[in-house]
């Protein structure tokens, strides 16, 4: 392709590809440049005019997001001139903005707020009563709420529905100060990726109905993880917080950029899957419907293992981490047990689409295949050890290791969910990715590996 050339930004030389976008270089080299409308997934639009830089030989400042790099360019991104320009443009953005950061859900992760602290810090020259009023809480559908007054008309959301999902629900109507983002009258934002517009929105105009007012963003801790919704393995951030005297709680999932796997986005089903993860958890061991202590449960399990020396089957959930699956396989070998992971239950053709969602709803299915684990239903056995597989199986005796409450007979032991444990997953395209431990519960639930150690004692 095109050759590498040298350009100078703020009297420092950089090697870049000829003809690439200037703003990409500035973002990559972490040179401070404010912008609203540019986004790497959506390309340049050039409507917010915030990313002004000075280019030697040109009369006026130019926007970096629409400037293609040419040999010998000399660029200044700092200085009195350029700060003045940015301050002036920011003032235009703020004319009709309500400046209600204290009650805005985006505060803390809002580009407008950041740039205001950097370049603005002036009182609005227009009184509140003179500002153009728009709708404040419009329910756009798909869990997205719109506040038209906070919108800076960067058109990221409309470009997302035009260029990424091709559903064209959002658009900008009207002109001048009456312009606003909206859907067609009587129609809703309705696509399986709709909530990505909340992440795309640089200001507090689009907020998630699910997350808004749940938590201030600066209280949240962020941990890298992988979505367990399907075999695609989309990279996510888990945002969680442990309020004093309460338990650690996940407040939201956000997409994490990975160009090899999911790009910039995740689907809404994956984004909201944190709810199922936390609800209805199995927290204490259960024997035939009665709560028992962990010690009693382990003793009971050992008793069952001693009783059924032969004809044991171990069933493994294809959502477990690779480390856990390998530990279970080693344990099964010691018991001389058959191992299987029935796959039919993970198939969901209705979930599949041609963006990110896969019809295989098991996050670590590739590992089950790699380790040659039988994917058929188990034969009749005298003892079944079910490691969180979603199906229930019949046998003379059953020991379940479950993350969530389930109506099942026999012995059930609680195990840590994926957010409370760390490990690796291999997605359907063969990428092995790591999940960090996010949640530290007040009363930790043992992991599968801890259970196996206790059973061996």
């Amino acid at each position, binding site marked *: 392709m095109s050759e590498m050339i040298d350009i100078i930004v703020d009297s420092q030389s950089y090697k870049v590809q000829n003809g690439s976008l200037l703003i990409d270089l500035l973002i990559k080299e972490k040179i401070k440049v404010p912008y609203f409308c540019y986004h790497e997934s959506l390309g340049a639009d050039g409507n917010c005019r915030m990313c002004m830089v000075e280019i030697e030989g040109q009369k006026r400042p130019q926007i970096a997001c629409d400037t293609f790099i040419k040999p010998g360019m000399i660029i200044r991104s700092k200085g009195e001139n350029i700060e003045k320009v940015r301050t002036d443009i920011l003032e235009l953005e703020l004319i009709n903005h309500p400046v209600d950061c204290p009650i805005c859900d985006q505060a803390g992760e809002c580009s407008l707020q950041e740039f205001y602290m950097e370049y603005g810090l002036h009182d609005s020259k227009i009184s509140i009563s003179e500002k153009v009023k728009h709708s404040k809480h419009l329910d756009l559908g798909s869990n997205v709420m719109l506040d038209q007054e906070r919108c800076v008309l960067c058109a990221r959301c*409309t470009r997302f529905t*035009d260029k990424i999902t091709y559903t*064209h*629900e*959002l*658009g*900008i*109507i*009207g*002109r001048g100060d009456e312009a606003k983002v909206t*859907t*067609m*009258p*009587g129609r809703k934002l309705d696509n399986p990726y709709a909530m990505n517009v909340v992440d795309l929105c640089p200001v507090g105009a689009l907020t998630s109905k699910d997350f808004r007012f749940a938590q201030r963003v600066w209280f949240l801790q962020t941990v890298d993880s992988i979505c367990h919704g399907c075999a695609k393995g989309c990279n996510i951030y888990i945002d969680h917080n442990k309020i004093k005297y309460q338990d650690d709680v996940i407040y939201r999932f956000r997409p994490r950029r990975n160009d090899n796997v999911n790009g910039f986005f995740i689907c809404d089903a994956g984004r909201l899957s944190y709810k199922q993860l936390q609800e209805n958890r199995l927290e204490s061991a259960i024997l035939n419907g009665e709560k028992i202590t962990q010690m009693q449960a382990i003793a009971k399990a050992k008793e069952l293992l001693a009783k059924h020396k032969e004809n044991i089957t171990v069933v493994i959930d294809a959502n477990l981490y690779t480390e856990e699956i390998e530990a279970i396989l080693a344990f099964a070998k010691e018991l001389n047990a058959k191992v299987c992971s029935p796959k039919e239950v993970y198939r969901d053709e209705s979930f599949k689409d041609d963006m990110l969602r896969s019809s295989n709803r098991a996050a670590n299915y590739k590992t089950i295949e790699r380790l040659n684990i039988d994917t058929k239903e188990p034969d009749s056995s005298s003892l079944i050890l079910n490691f969180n597989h979603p199906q229930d199986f019949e046998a003379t005796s059953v020991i379940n290791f479950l993350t969530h409450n389930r109506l099942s007979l026999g012995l059930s032991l609680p195990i840590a969910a994926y957010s409370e444990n760390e490990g690796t997953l291999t997605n359907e395209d063969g990428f092995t990715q790591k999940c960090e431990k996010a949640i530290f519960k007040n009363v930790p639930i043992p992991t599968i590996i801890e259970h196996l150690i206790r059973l061996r004692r």
Partner: protein
Amino acid sequence: MSFMFSKENLLKIEELKKRYPNPHALSLPCLWMAQYQEGFISLDAIDAISQIIHMPSMEIYGVATFYTMFRLEPSEKLIVDVCKTLSCKLCGSDEILEHLEKNDTIKLRHVECLGSCSTAPVMQINDVYYENLTIAKVDAILKELK
């Protein structure tokens, strides 16, 4: 879909299609045709146009709301468009607007430049320009139209 273009309009659209390399260029002519046919532009009409010119309905809706001359709601009252731009303002359109605002029998709209600055102030009723207006003249025109 309840809106259908009339036969003549469909022929006109076919004729216009040959003129432009991209059918998106037909959005404005189609919006005009829909407005003349029904008196206003309904959402059904926007959907019909969307199918003809292969452009998302939302985008056409955005175009229709951008221009002040398109009406998106039917009106039983007489629609009076008064120019609110510079030349007319300097020549006294404010007085005329103030006068017309008291009149309940008409639907008054402030529109962008009507392009007849030499004869300001100007108003438009049913595609006819009324120029060099005074309050007396406006009253006479409205009386005649009733």
